[in-house]
């Protein structure tokens, strides 16, 4: 909370300014400002035309202003209202302000300049921040989902996790190239910083999608540009805004309904699996028999013991943990319940103080605290941020700065999100229900002795609770601006972003596990330091019918990164306060490896931009930009550019009579942008290695190794990846500004797209210490699509108002050409871990990154069908039959092909708002259509991937001689075939989700004015209340892995579920 004294000082400062003005005043005018509803408008700016005298209206809408000699026109302005003027002919001036006629007058920042939306020639989505902040999320990216045509976001439900944003589809393969550029107040921010921007500080978000606008950013703008303008103080009395919410989160859908619940069911499944394979009854001494029963008709033992020679049915009297866990086998453990919790808290507190005086001093300060408990136990995320900006006019110069300091910390899912090994922290999918959370002695239960390699998920989370990662980020800029020679403005800006991340991880030995982890500690630190220095000159003039703006910019950027990592094990005492990489605390002989690395990249750019309008009807702009990036050593430079044109048809004479059309504009744009997101050193052949990857004990000492090095990266010169994009759009406003519509058709074509082609093994890249594949300029990718945005806003009566907004994007992605010089017709995407071979492959003529595997063609029902299996490996009655795709009457690897497409054909958002007097209601739905998901979790639950839990499907819908319409093959412990990548894993990922349902109440002014409160609103909200989908996994809105990836998408490795949130919130201004 801001100190009271500071507030007092701010008030006094504002008062002094007013006082000094009064001294020279000749005449004082009083008056009042009201809105169309007759209610007073608080905080409106009243200024005297032709002077720098201004004031703001007080809570009752009144003002008093001293007119300098000779001045007699007052100008009234207020956000959301049209600017109006009035003659101060009397001592009392009262006006009624009109709401802004349409969104067309909004000012849109398009790169280095700002335009009214009506003057745009490109495709730009302007996102209302008031709608965004309705979604409880620490990041504006998390709030963007479904809000703008062409913009798709995905994020893990894990607290504080990164969000991946794609604009108009995927178009590129190199890491980071799919992320749009994000420019905050003129400074580009790394995606890792984006969580650190306080969403409440954002004044506006603009998404630049067409190339005529993105061409201003040239380098790295292939994936679109998001421009964020943060809030600044407004001229007027100090204003304090407080917002706060508190909510409770619960998983929307769980695995509980899919997994076997009881030990008896699991034992039944095991019995059938062994029996069908001819392996039952088992020797009584085997773990399987001891666990699931002995004999022809096995009976589940009451207890399962790990020690050899102990019968399953009795408690071993020599209980000795952990060598002898005594575990009660039945009735069965619900591992979901063990790992997840309900009603986990989420809350945010935000306060800002802002204001400014008419002579040019403006300030804005804010503080934010966000905290979220994970729905997964012992996980959380906390963020603290403060921000300040001020702006002053000094001797003709405008000087200002912005600074955000953000600190966050988190305990996340151990091992990370969407990591296959971890399928929801190994507890939920990989633990048999037969294993209890605690053994009979009250210690952790686990897989020790023959229950597979699953981990007790609760134990894992509990042990992980002190492994808190932290990050501290600073970003901001200082700038100076001066106007000279009437039409020129020069601006110079220095911006910096600095990120520091610290991670520590102590792994305790999970003694209850079959394969316990070695205890040990690692800590790592990394640092990002990026700066930008830019200079800009703008010439702006209007003569006759010509309106000209000319901008020239020079900028230099440096991005640098450095990390260090160290480890130690053999701790003398295992205590969090002792977890340091200090050999005095652990075993010096463990000599764990220290590593460090770094990267940097420099860019220099020149930009010229022309904006021209004739009679305000014919709009034209053009950009040329020359970029140099150190990533392309030797061939650094590349010219980019774009042109855009628009015709405001509604201003033409022949349109005058068409009163139902208020505005109509046709736009066309074309431009070229680039991508330099490759490894900064990809041109060099690099050598390196490390103690564990290239060193070797050539001297046979058993305990030391000699330094060895090898090629780690095969250098290969490449050129920029370029993107040409054409866009045609129509903006229209109809029916007395009630309907706002935009439609855009685009065609994006990437040329020379960059990719590290997976080469045959003969290249020599393999496993640990792998050699990075060389980059190649590979071919062409296109994204063609159409975007539609409609907003309808109307009043039924004075009390009843409503609005409906829809955005739809249909996109078609295709790889048009693969490098003919390489003779490539397809390539394997570097897939994430897969135990069943490659899952993702890209073919020329098809969309990027399609799923790859066999097409399942039912189940072999009898010996005749098996005999006709065309040589399919492992063909047997009751097993999957693969389809002969290439028709060569032979089932082999050539019958694998595209089995699914993760790219959605349609993404959409629907927003409905209704208000009645002081009540307002919002519902926001969003979703995707036509995308497939590779449900990899079925590898664990529907086949024999590890000895974890199994699905109900597997027990109740597997083939038997009497269940011939089964969906899964016959239970058979020896079945090593059915789990192969096939269409069985592919599911429709389409969904519609109720992202936000909110009901608010605004307290009446009559009640508030006494307390000097200008606005107070409370609301209740449900987030992710329901999801309509056919997808069987827990969440079709798949999260990304720890980092967004361009090379594969749509694989469900055990997604962190999205929480359903019920919350209550308050907004207050005074």
């Amino acid at each position, binding site marked *: 909370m801001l100190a009271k004294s500071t507030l007092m000082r701010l008030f006094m400062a504002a008062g002094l300014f007013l006082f000094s003005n009064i001294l020279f005043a000749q005449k004082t005018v009083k008056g009042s400002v009201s809105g169309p509803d007759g209610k007073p408008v608080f905080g409106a700016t009243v200024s005297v035309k032709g002077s720098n005298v201004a004031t703001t209206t007080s809570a009752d809408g009144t003002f008093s202003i001293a007119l300098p000699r000779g001045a007699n026109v007052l100008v009234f302005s207020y956000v959301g209202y049209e600017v109006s003027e009035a003659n101060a002919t009397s001592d009392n001036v009262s006006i009624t302000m009109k709401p802004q006629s349409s969104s067309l007058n909004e000012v849109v920042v398009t790169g280095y300049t700002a335009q009214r939306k009506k003057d745009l020639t490109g495709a730009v989505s302007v996102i209302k921040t008031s709608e965004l902040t309705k979604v409880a999320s620490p990041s504006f990216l998390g709030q963007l989902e479904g809000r703008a045509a062409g913009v798709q976001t995905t994020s893990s439900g894990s607290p504080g996790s990164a969000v991946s944003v794609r604009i108009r589809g995927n178009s590129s393969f190199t890491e980071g190239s799919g992320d749009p550029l994000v420019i905050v107040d003129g400074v580009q921010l790394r995606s890792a910083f984006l969580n650190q921007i306080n969403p409440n500080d954002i004044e506006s978000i603009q998404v630049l999608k067409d190339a005529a606008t993105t061409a201003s950013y040239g380098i790295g703008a292939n994936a679109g540009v998001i421009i964020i303008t943060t809030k600044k103080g407004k001229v007027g009395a100090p204003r304090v805004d407080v917002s706060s919410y508190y909510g409770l989160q619960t998983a929307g859908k769980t695995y509980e309904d899919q997994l076997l619940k009881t030990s008896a069911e699991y034992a039944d499944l095991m019995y059938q699996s062994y029996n069908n*394979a001819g*392996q039952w009854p*088992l020797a009584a001494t*085997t773990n*399987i028999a001891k666990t699931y029963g002995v004999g022809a008709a096995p009976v589940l033992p009451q207890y399962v013991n790990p020690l050899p020679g102990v019968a399953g049915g009795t408690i071993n009297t020599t209980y000795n943990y952990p060598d002898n866990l005594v575990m009660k086998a039945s009735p069965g453990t619900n591992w979901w319940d063990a790992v997840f919790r309900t009603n986990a808290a989420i809350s945010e507190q935000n306060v800002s103080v802002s204001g400014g005086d008419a002579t040019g001093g403006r300030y804005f300060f804010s503080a934010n605290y966000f905290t979220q408990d994970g729905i997964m136990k012992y996980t959380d995320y906390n963020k603290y941020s403060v921000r300040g900006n001020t702006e002053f006019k000094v001797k003709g110069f405008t000087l200002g700065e912005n600074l955000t300091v953000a600190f966050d910390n988190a305990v996340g899912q151990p091992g990370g999100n969407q990591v*296959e090994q971890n399928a929801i922290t190994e507890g939920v999918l990989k633990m048999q229900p037969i294993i209890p959370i605690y053994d009979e002695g009250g210690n952790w239960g686990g897989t020790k*002795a*023959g229950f597979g390699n699953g981990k007790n998920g609760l134990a894992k989370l509990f042990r992980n609770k002190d492994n808190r990662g932290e990050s501290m980020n600073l970003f901001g800029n200082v700038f100076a601006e001066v106007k000279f020679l009437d039409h020129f403005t020069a601006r110079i800006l220095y911006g910096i972003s600095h990120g520091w991340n610290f991670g520590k991880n102590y792994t305790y030995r999970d003694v209850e596990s079959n394969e316990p*982890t*070695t205890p040990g500690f690692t800590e790592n630190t990394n640092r990002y330091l990026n700066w930008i*220095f830019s200079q800009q000159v703008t*010439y702006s003039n209007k003569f006759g019918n010509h309106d*000209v703006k000319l901008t020239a910019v020079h900028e*230099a950027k440096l991005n640098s990164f450095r990390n260090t990592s160290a480890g130690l094990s053999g701790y003398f005492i295992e205590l969090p306060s002792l977890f340091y990489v200090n050999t005095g605390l652990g075993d010096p002989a463990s000599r*764990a*490896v220290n590593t460090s*690395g*770094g990267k*940097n990249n420099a860019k220099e750019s*020149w930009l010229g931009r022309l904006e021209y309008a004739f009679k305000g009807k014919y709009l034209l702009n053009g950009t040329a930009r020359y970029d140099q990036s*150190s990533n392309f050593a030797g061939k650094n430079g590349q010219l980019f550019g774009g042109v855009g044109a628009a015709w405001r048809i509604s201003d033409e004479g022949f349109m005058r009579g068409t009163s139902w059309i208020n505005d109509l504009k046709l736009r066309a744009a074309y431009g070229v942008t680039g991508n330099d997101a490759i490894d*900064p050193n990809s041109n*060099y052949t*690099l*050598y390196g290695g*490390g*103690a*564990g*990857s290239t060193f*070797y*004990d*050539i*001297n*046979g000492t*058993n*305990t*030391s*190794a000699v*330094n*060895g*090095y*090898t090629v780690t990266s095969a250098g290969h010169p490449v050129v920029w990846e370029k993107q040409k994009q054409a866009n045609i759009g129509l903006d229209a406003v109809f029916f007395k500004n009630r309907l706002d519509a935009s439609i855009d058709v685009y065609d994006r074509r990437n040329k020379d797209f960059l990719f590290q082609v*997976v080469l*045959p*093994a*003969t290249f*020599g*890249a*393999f*496993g*640990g*210490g792998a050699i990075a594949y060389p980059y190649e300029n590979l071919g062409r990718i296109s994204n063609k699509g159409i975007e539609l945005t409609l907003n309808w806003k109307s009043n039924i009566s004075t009390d009843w108002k409503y609005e409906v907004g829809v955005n739809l994007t249909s996109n078609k992605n295709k790889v048009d050409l693969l490098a003919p010089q390489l003779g490539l*017709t397809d390539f394997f995407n570097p897939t994430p871990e897969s135990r069943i*071979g490659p899952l993702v492959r890209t073919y020329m003529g098809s969309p990027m990154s399609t799923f790859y595997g066999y097409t399942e063609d039912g189940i072999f029902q009898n010996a005749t069908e098996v005999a006709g299996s065309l040589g399919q490996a492992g063909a047997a009655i009751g097993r999957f039959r693969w389809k002969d795709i290439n028709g060569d009457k032979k089932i*082999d690897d050539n019958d694998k092909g595209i089995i699914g497409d993760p790219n959605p054909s349609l993404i959409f958002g629907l927003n409905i708002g209704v208000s009645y007097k002081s009540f307002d209601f919002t519902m926001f739905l969003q979703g995707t259509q036509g995308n497939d998901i590779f449900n990899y979790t079925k590898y664990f639950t529907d086949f024999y*991937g*590890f*000895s974890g839990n199994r699905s109900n499907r597997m027990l109740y819908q597997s083939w038997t001689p009497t269940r011939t319409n089964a969906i899964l093959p016959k239970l058979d*412990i020896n079945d*090593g075939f059915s789990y192969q990548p096939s269409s069985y894993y592919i599911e429709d990922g389409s969904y519609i989700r109720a992202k936000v349902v909110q009901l608010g109440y605004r307290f009446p002014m009559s009640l508030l004015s006494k307390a000097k409160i200008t606005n107070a609103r409370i609301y209740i909200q449900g987030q992710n209340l329901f999801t309509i989908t056919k997808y069987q996994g827990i969440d079709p809105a798949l999260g990304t892995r720890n980092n967004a990836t361009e090379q594969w998408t749509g694989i469900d490795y055990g997604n962190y579920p999205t929480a359903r949130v019920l919350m209550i919130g308050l907004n207050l201004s005074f």
Partner: protein
Amino acid sequence: MFVNKLTKLTAAILIGLAVFSCKKSFLERLPEASFTEGLLANEKGVNATLIAAYGALDGWADNGWNNAAGNPWPVAGSNWIWGSVTTDDATPGSEPNDQHPIEDLNRYLYQPDNTYFRAKYQAIYWGINRANVTLKLLAKAAGISTANADQITAEAKFLRAYFHFDGYKMWKNIPYIDETVTDYRQKNDVDIFPKIEADLQAAIAKLPEKTSNSSGRATKGAAQALLARAYMFIGKYAEAKSLLNSVITSNKYSLVDNYHDNFDASKQNNNEIVLSYKASVNDGAGESANGNWGDRLLGVHNMPGLSGCCGFHTATYNLLNAFKTDPVTGLPMANFNAADYNAATDFLDPRVDWTFARPGIPFLDWGKAESGWARNVGYTGFFNPKKTAFHKSQYKTLSTASGWSDWPNAIDISLIRYSDVLLMAAECEIETNGDLTKANGFINDIRKRAWKFVQGEGTSEVTISHALPAPVAGIVADVVNGTKYRIGLYPAFANQAEARNALRFERRLELAMEGYRYFDLVRWKVATTVLNAFLAVETPKFGCFAGHEQFTDTKMLYPLPAVEIQLSKINGEAQLKQNPGY
């Protein structure tokens, strides 16, 4: 006029901004934390790349998991999967559906998309590339004497040949990659044997003989032995014979007294080791990644005090029975597999208890092995491998706890042993209709060493080995740990067939579970007969053989990995052709 004005304006602005333009060096960035080629193009650098190439002998680097390659065991330098699990010697071990790909291989369900084929294939070329990197860098390096350059070249070519031959044994039809290849989508339609031969001949010409400090390096003897092995693989016994004779007459190698010393991490720098992967632990590499990671699954499942992992690579009853010896002669028995070994009545070759665990018999110094140490008796039995086990006294000094397993250790992977050299030499004499007495002598040398020590009571480091009594009438007999041991020498061979039988049996016993068996059966062209006969008897004993296919002659070559065939396509046409029959 208007345009003219704009031009002037633009020029003026650009000149103004030019004041701020950067120095050229701003855009020139050297790679951070990596060597560029120029920095290593010298003797030190080239030697370092050679070290890295040696490091690839185990098929694996790094402690990384979850990478594209998968896991270390399919690529293990010991070839325990490819040379042993796929034979009558061993089963996969563990329990059902733990590592499906191994189970499929064990059941002779050889599928081109079995992910392990690709892993092994990748590992081979990964090693080859490291050797090629050395040669490429050497060509650019300055300041290296001719002699040193020659030796570096010879060592690199030796390694390149070693890796290629490892692949040749598996698939035969694979491309040869040398330092001149730039398009890696190579055809496999030419026999690469001459290139393996050429590289090894070049290595033999320039490599020095073994010295007391050669340790892990390639020597002339190693190159000769490897080329001999390669010749024998394609039936060129005469060529092999002279090479082996050179190795033997060099007098640089000898059999160690205690057979087990070859598998004891602390005693492997001995004269019997011709070439090995020198494993090292606790040396500063993360999770002791320089240990023998490929063998990390070979731990005993329920060994007291160790993590409960693994239990892979267990021996078959067939192998146990093969160690049975004649109650009179102490020689292997022709009908060894007619009945399972019976401790009360049967005699055993002492090497059996250096090869795998038997319940009730001490396990090195870990105490008596118990049936409960096994992971799943009904599935794969309890004969856990012993040659890859470290001593209890070496726990955490020559072993390491790594991730979920306590097993990675410093036991070197022996790649060429002198006993193998002697057996190869004997085989060459036999197959070339040469000197059968000489062959008999070599085989009996092996047996004379085998009769010196047996597994002792195993309560401490000192009692791991028990010295057997001196031979009486060419036979050593003793009863230790309740086991009747008996081993005798072969009398003179009557004919080639008898000698061949003796040689082949001795080879199986001496090198049991060391990754040789499959390739021996293949080159002897007896794999189909031997393996199907084995399956018929063994299948009812272990669940892991249920649902197996018959072995066929087609399977004498493994299938090329399906993904690699896909990756070799140029204009849609695969350059790599699948082996016949798949």
